């Protein structure tokens, strides 16, 4: 099977239907292991047990950024190849990514209250995640505002790509503006600064949430494809009824 065969929506439905139960089960298992590891992991020497929030907060942040990257790649698929499946992937990823971004902000606020003494600070990382959430909501609002699905897909793709160009600039400017959040500690030059006893549960949780994202995304894509087919059938039935 070539990867390009998947570009056919019927084949995609076929293969994703067979794949979906496995990914769903894997995500439940890996998340269960990850949470178990997280509760076995030692408490942080400064932060105590509140560091447990990290095991969901950090994966949410990563996946919020990953979902936007996926949407940007799909946007290229929409604009360059005008591919219907890319449009479906783009549309399905937006609400999931927005939810992860919102959850990242909420869990961060709950973590910030005991650690920083406040739910919210106007710090660079918090602010750029908030801007990312706003971009998600903008893309979704633009899609909702336009009825014709193919035109709304291309419009949302243009906006997504503008956002991709803009995100590094926003990131850079808010860093310049104000910084309190700790800098990147897992993926950095010279290795991770997190101890292995905390890092492995974190990576397991991240894998589990990634599988969860894949599950939700596949379900949303399948639903969207079927919804479009139903719409076509309804339109055809209505046209026939008109005579």
């Amino acid at each position, binding site marked *: 099977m070539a990867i390009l065969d998947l570009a056919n929506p019927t084949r995609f439905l076929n293969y994703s239907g067979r794949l979906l139960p496995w990914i769903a089960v894997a995500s439940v298992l890996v998340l269960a292991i990850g949470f178990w590891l997280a509760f076995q992991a030692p408490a942080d020497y400064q932060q105590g047990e509140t560091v447990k929030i990290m095991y969901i907060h950090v994966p949410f942040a990563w996946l919020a950024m990953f979902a936007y990257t996926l949407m940007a790649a799909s946007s290229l698929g929409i*604009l360059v190849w005008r591919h219907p499946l890319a449009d479906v992937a783009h549309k399905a990823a937006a609400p999931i990514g927005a939810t992860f971004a919102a959850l990242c902000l909420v869990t961060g606020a709950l973590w910030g209250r005991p650690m920083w003494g406040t739910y919210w600070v106007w710090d660079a990382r918090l602010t750029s995640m908030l801007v990312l959430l706003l971009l998600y909501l*903008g893309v979704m*609002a633009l899609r909702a*505002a336009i009825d*014709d699905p193919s035109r709304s897909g291309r419009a949302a793709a*243009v*906006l997504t790509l503008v956002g991709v160009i803009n995100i590094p600039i*926003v990131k850079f400017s808010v860093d*310049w503006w104000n910084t309190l959040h700790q800098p990147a500690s897992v993926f950095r030059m010279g290795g991770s600064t997190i101890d292995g006893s905390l890092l492995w549960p974190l990576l397991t949780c991240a894998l589990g949430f990634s599988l969860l994202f894949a599950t939700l995304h596949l379900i949303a894509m399948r639903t969207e494809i079927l919804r479009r087919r139903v719409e076509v059938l309804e339109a055809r039935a209505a046209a026939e009824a008109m005579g």
Partner: protein
Amino acid sequence: MTRAFLAILRRDLALSLGSGGGAGLGVVFFLCVITVVPFAVGPDLALLARIGPAILWIGALLASLIGLERLFTADVEDGSLDNLTLSALPLELVAAAKGLAHWLATGLPLVIAAPVLALMLNLEPAAIAAVVATLLVGTPAVTFLGLIGAAFAGAFRRGGLLIAVLVIPLAIPVLIFAVSATTSAVTGPVPFGTPFRVLLGLALFSLVLGPVAAAAALRAARG
């Protein structure tokens, strides 16, 4: 090509200046925002002097955004956009010409009005000069980023709230560097030139990004 560009520029300028309320209304809106703020935060002149540059910038940002709605709408409705698409000028340059005309008609008056409004907010001369300089550089950036939202709104016939939701996240860097340039002109510690040069860079960047993305949005609407 230059002649076509100038022709669109002249036409749009004549339309927005001649239709009445184009340039003036934006300045009046700007004045309204500046008037409302002291009622909200209290008439403390020391406080107003401190937050004045930020208030001026928020007012200018909102005033730049509200005018954008009609930028493409009329041309889409009466079909002149189809005409412009068929002309020898690339759609990107059409968008750029319209953006430039829009800035001359609505953005430049805001810059000219700013010193008077700054006096009402008790700004000292150095701060006034800094605000005017950042507005002169920053409002074109906002207008050209706003072109993207205006193209969506015009092509898909959707209203002003959508423009604000789409454009405000994109305009955050401009706001950050404009306001930090004005504060550093008054209190330091960084010299005025450092954030101001970044602001210049952002303005040049959006001068390119805005028309290209706006043209892409117009083409997307065409299908």
